[in-house]
């Protein structure tokens, strides 16, 4: 017997999922995370999960991991000292950034601190021009002198980033050599992120350098613990691009782990949606403080290279995830003009909503759902927490219902509706602004709070169905079981959109890729290479990424150009077919496919019916049937109003909506009704 394991670590909990491919069964364990030594929680979770599945460590044939260690290192801002060597006169590029303020009208706003302190930033004479030719020779004596000064400061690593190094890395490489001679550890921007725009390239390289040691030492400790247990397979790590890479790659490109967690959820979204027959879907992972929205289009995850972390640009390929400040703990409040607002302030996990009874005293979305009868006060979190219902009513009356002149239930319903409106706005942004019509999409809702809002948000955005996957509370971990291994490489390209020149440039990129996948232990025969290219109209500054088919020739280049025109039209409403199109960046991805999950839904041998409860909807209380979700058999349908309960999550089926259970155990809610509330 063999099993596959996925471990998803969040700030509060670590979720472990064990999949037995022979039986088509999954088992799940939830255990507390153990910051700052996250590996302890992960290893405990693995132990518990194996025990629960009654399997030996030797049976593990695949182990993958989503981690927040890199994310925390960046967000908490406690980065080790990093040095910088750049062109003379340009050391403050890193501090000036794009010269904007983060908030327009806030007189107390703050700019993010640059990732390298000024005293560790140095400029050296030497310059390469926009054609990649040397303008001024590198002053090696100056570099040596800077190297000696830097060595005295003992930075953990030194970023080397000079102008146009993505066209000609000679100066960076030479500087690197001279720094090494002084015992320093240089990282070249042309090796980490060889793309145009010096500030973005430097920040990306510097952030990567800054989190590298934290991520590396964490993964080393984790790998050692895994090996100690007799697990013979290496740890794979989820990267921001929604693929897995080795711990060695994760240590080298540590900054690519910042979206490790959300990427796992996005991958799970893609898998669940396509398995249910939806090639287009929106993922909504809603937890305590916020919701992550991802997009699946034509069976592929939407990706971007325009990310941001802590107000700093991050330009590595990543899943296109938008975070909305609406979660179960989001606080509802009345502003000075009397409008009801929800979030962005959140009561978080501690003290949490009022109904947790841990000292929270501001009304939250979860509290509203409780007052509306949508959450079972006894069943909540498997009855582990006693809910202070009366206290919750009092707070709603005091803060919302009283001032609004409405009943407590009306105020609670309004809270839910406002939260749904902001989720809907974000989903519209993710779809309509890309020129996509969400009407044929499925909304895959998960996380503790997502399934409660799913039907309403799907209706409000005009989506066809809401899909609540099995075990929505630990759904992200599933993504770790189904993610492919993906290695991405990209390079700026200056030249014509002509097949022969492109083929030459891609060939270089692809041989690097093959080398890197071989280093990770993959048989080149299993590796599929995909090409893409960022194009724009000559004179524009923003590009769109389009696929380039095989084999690379005149016809496939024409097809890529045509894809660009159509993508431009879809996204912006117009295209200029006659205008010249220029290539900016070439991208290649090596992919090793992971086998699909074969999942048998529960047999439904227990009684799913749990009686009825009064649940409040627009217009008043209605009697809703209550079901035990895990006991519902595939093929069964449930008419709203109904509530489906399971550990860690609750699914709401509004009046007039219908839910059906798929062969894979997913709940498909057809919002049907014009007004689902």
């Amino acid at each position, binding site marked *: 017997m063999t099993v596959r394991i996925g471990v998803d670590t969040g700030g509060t909990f670590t979720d472990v999922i064990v999949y037995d491919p022979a039986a088509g069964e999954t088992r799940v364990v939830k255990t507390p995370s153990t910051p700052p030594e996250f590996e302890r929680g992960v290893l405990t979770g693995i132990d518990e999960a194996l025990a629960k599945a009654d399997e030996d460590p030797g049976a593990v044939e695949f182990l993958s991991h989503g981690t927040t260690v890199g994310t925390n290192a960046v967000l908490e801002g406690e980065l080790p000292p990093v040095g910088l060597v750049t062109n003379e006169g340009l050391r403050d590029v890193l501090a000036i950034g794009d010269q904007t303020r983060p908030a327009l009208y806030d007189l107390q*706003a703050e700019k993010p601190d640059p990732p390298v302190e000024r005293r560790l930033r140095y400029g050296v004479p030497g310059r390469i021009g926009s054609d990649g030719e040397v303008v001024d020779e590198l002053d090696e004596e100056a570099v040596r002198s800077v190297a000696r000064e830097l060595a005295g400061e003992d930075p953990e690593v030194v970023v080397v980033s000079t102008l146009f190094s993505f066209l000609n890395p000679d100066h960076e490489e030479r500087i690197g050599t001279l720094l090494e001679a002084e015992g320093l550890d240089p990282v070249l921007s042309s090796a980490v992120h060889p793309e145009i725009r010096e500030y973005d390239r430097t920040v990306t390289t510097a952030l990567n350098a800054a989190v590298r040691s934290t991520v590396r030492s964490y993964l080393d400790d984790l790998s050692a613990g895994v090996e100690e247990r007799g697990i013979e397979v290496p740890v794979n790590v989820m990267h921001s691009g929604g693929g897995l890479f080795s711990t060695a790659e994760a240590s080298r490109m540590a900054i690519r782990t910042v979206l490790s967690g959300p990427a796992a959820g996005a991958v799970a979204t893609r898998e669940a949606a396509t398995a249910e027959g939806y090639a287009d879907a929106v993922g909504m992972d809603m937890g305590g403080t916020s919701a992550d929205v991802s997009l699946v289009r034509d069976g592929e995850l939407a990706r971007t290279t325009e990310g941001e972390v802590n107000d700093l640009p991050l330009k590595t390929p990543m899943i296109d995830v938008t975070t909305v400040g609406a979660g179960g703990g989001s606080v509802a409040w009345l502003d000075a003009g009397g409008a009801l607002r929800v979030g962005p302030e959140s009561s978080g996990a501690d003290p949490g909503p009022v109904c947790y009874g841990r000292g929270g005293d501001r009304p939250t979305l979860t509290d509203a759902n409780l007052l509306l009868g949508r959450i079972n006060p006894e069943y909540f979190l498997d009855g582990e927490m006693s809910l202070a219902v009366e206290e919750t009513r009092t707070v709603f009356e005091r803060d919302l219902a009283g001032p609004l002149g409405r009943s407590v239930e009306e105020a609670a319903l309004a809270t839910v509706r406002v939260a749904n409106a902001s989720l809907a706005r974000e989903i519209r942004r993710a779809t309509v602004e890309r020129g996509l019509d969400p009407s044929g999409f499925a909304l895959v809702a998960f996380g503790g709070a997502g399934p409660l809002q799913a039907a309403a948000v799907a209706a409000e955005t005009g989506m066809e169905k809401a899909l609540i996957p099995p075990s929505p509370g630990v759904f992200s971990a599933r993504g770790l079981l189904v993610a492919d291994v993906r290695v991405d490489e990209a390079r700026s390209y200056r030249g014509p959109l002509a097949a022969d020149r492109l083929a030459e440039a891609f060939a270089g990129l692809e041989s690097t890729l093959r080398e890197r996948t071989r280093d990770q232990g993959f048989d080149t025969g299993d590796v599929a290479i995909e090409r893409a290219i960022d194009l724009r109209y000559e004179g524009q500054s923003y590009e769109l990424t389009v696929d380039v088919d095989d084999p690379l020739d005149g016809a496939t280049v024409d097809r890529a150009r045509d894809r660009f025109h159509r993508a431009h039209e879809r996204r912006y409403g117009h295209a200029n077919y006659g205008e010249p199109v220029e290539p900016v960046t070439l991208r290649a991805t090596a992919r090793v496919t992971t086998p699909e999950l074969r999942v048998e839904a529960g047999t439904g041998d227990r009684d799913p019916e749990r009686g009825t409860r009064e649940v409040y909807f627009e217009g008043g209380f209605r009697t809703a049937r209550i079901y035990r979700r895990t006991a519902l058999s595939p093929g069964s349908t449930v008419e709203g109003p109904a509530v489906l309960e399971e550990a860690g999550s609750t699914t709401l089926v509004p009046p007039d909506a219908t839910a059906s259970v798929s062969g894979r155990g997913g709940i498909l809610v057809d919002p049907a009704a014009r007004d689902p509330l």
Partner: protein
Amino acid sequence: MTAPPSPGSPGDGDEPSGPDLEIFRHALESSVEEMGVTLQRTAYSTNIKIRRDHTCALFDADLRHVAQHDVAPQHIGSLVSVIPRNVEPLLDELEPGDGFLINDPYRGAVHLPDVMLVSPVFDDEDADDPELIGVAANSAHHVDVGGSTAGGIPISTDLYQEGLVFPMVRAAEDWAYDDRIMSLVTRNVRDSEKRMGDYRAQLGANRIGVRRLRSLREEYGPEGLDRHLDALLDYTERRVRAAIADLPDGTYGASDEMDGDGVTGDPVPIALSITVDGDEMTLDFSGTASTNEGPLNCTPAMAFAGVMSVVMGFVGSDLPKNDGFYRPFEVVTPEDTMVNPREGAPVAGGWEVAMRAGELVAKAMADAVPEETIAATKGIICNVAYGGRDPRDGEEYVFYETVAGGYGARAERDGMDAVQTHFQNTANSPIEELETEIPLRVRRYELIADSAGAGRTRGGLGVRRDVEFYDHEATFSLLSDRAESDPWGLFGGRPGRRARYVVNPDTDPRPVNSKSTTTLDPGDVTSVQTPGGGGYGDPHERDPEAVARDVRNGVVSVEAARGEYGVVCDAEGTVDRAATEALRGSAETEGDGPAGESEGDGTDPEGGDPA
């Protein structure tokens, strides 16, 4: 379809409130956001696509301003002062798919480069007799609209020298530009191909706005839409009034002088008094210089944007921008002054005036809410334009940019280094993009040491940007300020360093006027050095370790640490505690008083230096 408030819901027929309003606001604001993204992402000139110098707005059938995409606050008030006034007379002539161009400063617009495109929104474009349900409009800063110098910032003495004036002309029909008009336009501007791309992007943005407003009306129904719009405007007004009422009543004044109007070097006075009376606020420019001969004039719309973008910082930064927002304010711009110039007067430097007006708001409010306000910022737009013929391909080029500077110190925080200020928040161009497009090399782009005004909290640092023009003759135009007066400190804080504008700073320094056009020889280097922000509070109260950190980072010199802050430390930033205490103690006994109490009437003895 989305779910509008259902008939039969509680409060049906009443004014939408609380939750309904919030839901509606989300839907309406996402419409203008979509317009904005479309415009930015499809534009061709750096100014729009990277610097985001544009805005989009929607108006209802009564031509009330109902929503605005809030990325570039300088455009607050610009579309609103143009639309009702110029659309009203055309109401009977509007057709679906129309696009009108307007940039006429004397018909409500701002300066000529900000070209607005206005399109009507009808309920059904294919109907025989469609009903007008609103207006979609956007404004974008074009890098060239013709005129005497490349980049649109000439030292002009009348409007005609500044470029082409669009008097609300129908330039597009049925969502396509009229070739006859656009051929005339493109023949009169530099680098015309890119310009056409920008005009097309503007048309695309309006088209998105039209679709979205129409679908909102379908969702909510005609009466439902009106009802929600009324409620949204009233809500906004309520919030603004509540915020103004929280400010202490009184009249607060501030004044300053600008470097000169570009034609004469005489200092130009600007004055503002703010009266808070209950829940209303009046901002009065009486005492400001009369219409200038040179381009240092701004239209009332620009003055309005200038003051409002700072007022926002005191009344709530997340307020929607719509008709309701404007209701409690009155801005008095006396006729024939530089904030309401004589018709035909040049206005190319208007944003410099508006920027300084914003500075005066912060200065005046120091008396009302000292903990909330900030010391002087860089206080300039710092318009810089370059033009010439690219030696690499022989093509003509134009480039326009603005340079960041220091932010004013705050009661509890240092000013930010190297940022845009007040209504200005335009991004820079990456050096690699710039050098690829334009035949220049950015030789220095750095923070200026000792440029920040000292204080208990210090100002932000100014920026030095040195650019070399290789292998060709180029023109270097400046329309800037603050070379002849100080960015003030508050409550004992010291002023920041003034601006400097220099050609060949490191070889054969030649200072140039803050408003000037200079022809450069091949290989010349221009140096724009922007002001630092003013400090806040007595510099001797600053934590010596904070001073030492600045010394270690090379942004405060050892000499300034001692002279300005009374902190004795070495270049490594090691503080000599005893010497520091002794130095700070002796300064007190000398009765040095609160240094740099410069927030008085702003009269600066050095301001009158004739050019």
